[in-house]
């Protein structure tokens, strides 16, 4: 069975701190994609990143970085020097090829950045 677990329901940090959001996935497929989405208070989910199962290189985009480790089935997301605008709900998702590209969603982590 496929599953995505985001064990952290809510995280609260003070601005400028670094914060890591955890994502653990389960699948028996060898070809799959992992995603992170951000949902700010406005409600619309915004795509952040996609990673395919054959590419374990870490990715950095400004203050955001992602650590993909197949050995631990994890795809963690780190925000460096957090800002109040980073406050949002963050979702991790899994896409397996034989599902007609349906995404399997984690429950989401609510991130609160305090000024």
């Amino acid at each position, binding site marked *: 069975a496929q599953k995505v677990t985001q064990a952290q329901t809510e995280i609260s940090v003070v601005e400028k701190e670094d914060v890591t959001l955890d994502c653990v996935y389960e699948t028996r497929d060898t070809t799959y*994609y992992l995603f992170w989405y951000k949902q700010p208070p*406005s409600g619309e989910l*915004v*795509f952040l990143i*996609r990673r395919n199962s054959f590419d374990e290189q870490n990715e950095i985009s400004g203050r955001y970085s992602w650590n993909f480790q197949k050995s631990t089935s994890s795809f963690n997301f780190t925000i460096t020097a957090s800002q109040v605008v980073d406050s949002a709900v963050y979702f991790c998702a899994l896409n397996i090829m034989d599902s*007609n590209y*349906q995404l399997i*969603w984690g*429950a989401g982590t609510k991130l609160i950045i305090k000024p």
Partner: protein
Amino acid sequence: DVKVTQSSRYLVKRTGEKVFLECVQDMDHENMFWYRQDPGLGLRLIYFSYDVKMKEKGDIPEGYSVSREKKERFSLILESASTNQTSMYLCASSSVTDRRYNYGYTFGSGTRLTVV
């Protein structure tokens, strides 16, 4: 800029009313999805569609139906609205052929429905 547009941002309906939530995408995507989002329950799939006139039940289809008469439009119908259908409804689309969209979803802004 590519878009998924949901017709209403906020909606208030009475119990027993038939409710239509509309979603239109301009990306020529094959797949379209309807989710509801409730606090503590994450995103739950109601229905999805792979093509015009095709539909598949998701995890929580009871009390809902859908219509996809044109590729760009996917409608969610609450046949007889009930208070437990008060929720945020999110529409999304995806492409299985266009690599520009990375096989991920593009979401609308959501419709917050309140049934009184």
